[in-house]
């Protein structure tokens, strides 16, 4: 049996990290409108340029921007107007971030307020010393080229202004085999997934850890992924809870049926469970997930326990989508640090040698398998020094699973 990750029973947690949920624009506000009821201990503020849209939201604090410029009618996708609206309310915004350490911005990317004003707010929050995590909803592909171009620009702006960007593409949440799926259902589903994931993340970050996972762990891992990540939360209870949890994760649409997890270079995973959860179950979750990851993936795991979770186990997983640079195995970094301490800084050649030693056995193993095959003896394809006729998985040092030969 599965239950929602968060329930109304979740109350004040130990050593809380002050987190502000800031919704920007119509989409942002509407998508997580159910969250204050479920996780009431967090702070919520909605910012919009559209008075009517703002009035319909359930948040305790709401800020209408740019009323004198647009009469409270929104920006209509006009980024300049969004910017002017912000400039008009600087004083109001300054006090907004006081007392918080983290701001979780929730916005849709296709509009003027969420796409134009949101990154500016993220920038202000950073200036105020907060860690900025942005949860952004990408519009449907069917919404057209102009909106998509707007969304792309907005995304770039968010990347600049945020410590980590979490993407929720609406298209991934469509149920392909269900042609009758209503738009309202899709948006509701999106809201539920975002709420579950962000609420889960917030609860985890504020929990008492048995195996620690800090906010900086999250931020640093995601930074190495160039800021893009997908965030999912799943939960289960009952006898087969571990299997159910893993099945939910591995078939989750937001991580593309687990594909993104399998190909990702950086993963942050938080397990939240009750005090009676056996170590064997936690190990099983961890090992099963590690088994499907890339051999060079940077995985950070934390475990938090909370009495109120009883028989439930929940998983919050952040999956990095794109790496800006090659992952350097930790052991090389440690070896370099040690060497630096003992003998001064390692030379570039020595670093390279250290890295080669680590990946060499796998490369040699695969290289023995006549890797160039049919391209032997013909002009090689060389790009930036790499011989592309040699299999990519060998050059990248990817590990393959064991495969068993059968007798014919």
């Amino acid at each position, binding site marked *: 049996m599965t239950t929602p990750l968060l329930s109304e029973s979740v109350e004040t947690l130990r050593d809380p990290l002050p987190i502000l949920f800031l919704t920007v624009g119509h989409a942002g506000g509407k998508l997580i409108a159910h969250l204050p009821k479920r996780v009431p201990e967090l702070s919520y503020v909605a910012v919009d340029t559209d008075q009517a849209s703002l009035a319909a939201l359930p948040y305790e604090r709401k800020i209408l921007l740019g009323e004198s410029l647009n009469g409270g009618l929104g920006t209509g996708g006009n980024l300049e107007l969004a910017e002017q609206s912000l400039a008009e309310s600087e004083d109001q915004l300054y006090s907004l971030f006081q007392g918080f350490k983290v701001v979780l911005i929730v916005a849709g990317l296709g509009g003027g307020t969420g796409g134009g004003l949101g990154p500016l707010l993220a920038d202000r929050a950073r200036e105020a010393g907060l860690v900025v995590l942005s949860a952004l909803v990408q519009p449907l*592909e069917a919404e057209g*080229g*102009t909106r*998509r*171009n707007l969304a*792309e620009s907005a995304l770039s702006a968010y990347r600049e202004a945020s410590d980590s960007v979490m993407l929720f593409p609406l*298209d991934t949440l469509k149920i392909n085999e269900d042609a009758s799926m209503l738009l309202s259902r899709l948006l509701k589903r999106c809201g539920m997934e975002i709420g579950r994931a962000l609420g889960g993340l917030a609860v985890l970050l504020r929990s008492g850890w048995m195996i620690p996972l800090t906010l900086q762990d999250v931020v640093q891992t995601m930074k190495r992924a160039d800021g893009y990540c997908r965030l999912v939360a799943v939960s289960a209870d009952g006898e087969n809870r571990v299997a159910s949890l893993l099945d939910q994760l*591995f*078939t989750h649409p937001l991580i*593309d*049926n*687990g*594909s*993104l*997890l*399998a*190909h990702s270079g950086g993963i942050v995973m938080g397990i939240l469970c009750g005090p009676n959860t056996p170590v064997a179950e936690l190990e099983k979750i961890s090992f099963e997930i590690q088994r*499907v990851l890339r051999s060079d993936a940077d995985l950070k795991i934390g475990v938090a326990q909370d009495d109120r979770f009883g028989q439930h186990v929940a998983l919050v997983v952040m999956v990095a*989508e*794109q790496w800006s640079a090659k992952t350097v195995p930790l052991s090389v970094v440690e070896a370099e640090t040690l060497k630096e301490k003992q003998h001064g800084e390692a030379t570039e050649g020595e670093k390279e040698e250290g890295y080669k030693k680590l990946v060499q056995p796998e490369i040699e193993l*695969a290289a023995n*398998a*006549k*890797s*160039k*095959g*049919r*391209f032997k003896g*013909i*002009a090689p*394809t060389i*790009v930036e020094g790499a011989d*592309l*006729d040699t*299999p*990519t*998985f*060998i050059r*990248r040092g*990817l590990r*393959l*699973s064991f*495969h*068993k*030969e*059968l*007798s*014919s």
Partner: protein
Amino acid sequence: MAHPIAVLEIGTSEVRVLVAEPREDGLLMITGVGRYPSSGVRKSEVVDFENAKICLKKALLEAEENAQVSIQEIFMVISGDHIRQANNRGTVNVLSPDRIITAEEREDVMETARTLNLPHDQEILHSICGKFYIDDQADGVLNPDGMEGSRLSLDMLILFGQSNRLRNMFRLAEEAALEVTEVAFAGLCCGLSVLTPQQKEVGAILIDLGAGTSDYVVYSDKVIALAGSLGVGGDHVTNDLAAGLNLSTSQAERLKVKYGASMVDLSSRGRRISIPPETGFRAKDVLSRDVNTIIHARMEEVFELIKAQMDKDVKRKNFGAGVILTGGGAQMARIQDLASRVFQMPCHIGYPRDISGLALPSESPEFASTVGMLKYGMRAGASSAKGPFIGNFIRKMFGKP
């Protein structure tokens, strides 16, 4: 009725011949298709002349029988990673007293921009007009006629390739008693075949995933901003699978076509695939995850290399139409998802448009380049029966009048 046009592509996996008749409404009706598995071609280049010749003749014969025509002249699609691009800017002074730019100045600047010093073993295949710039204006225009200025510049995208490798292709056609009327780069042909004018206008990245090469053309800011060919294709995927899983090439090819996907799907993580035995290779079970990990690594690299080239060479990156994939590789499971992930934009499969007649070419992205060449041929106002249109390139290569 208009004369039929015939197109030849000597691909790495297959030799294809298409015959079509231009219809009165401007569309093409496919009347003949000839296909034969390639032998002696690697990375879109001839490595075994005799074998390649046999394959060409077989495909030609099939197309002739199919279309009930005798083919003597042919339009040829070419590719290969020797095909390179250069951006050349030409500038001329506007000499008229009123400084109004006329068609004459436009022609002059085109000629200047087209002039590129290449090594003696290279030949220009295409010169494609980009934007015109008047004086020091940062924003270019597509047509400067009637505008005022003292200096007119033009960015020209020039595609060139190695003469001897191109000649091998022509010699092959000659051996089959064919005269090559005109040649065009496969990537450009695919653009003609599958993209709508709207897609070109809002910007698109077109990638033709062939067996030997991956050709790409990037439309941005209403012009072709980048075109090229990467010497990696579906053959490399097959080779990677054979090397990684210790299979024969044919076992690996079947595995790729039947079970391969560009993304690892964890919902089927423990799934095993049984490979039947083959001479010299035993039967075995392989994990679906291993197969897809190998394919993913290769295809991801292909997309990443094209993206890196694009990031380097394309100034204005507006791609409202996203990524469009053609070629046999576009039929691989989940290739769209991978491209979408690497380029961070939507991806579609491109099918040849505006054709009728035999169904196969319009139903398969594999035919994008050959159908595009048919359109190129039709646009050139040529027919393969009489009065061939001899392009600059052919004239230079064979010294025709």
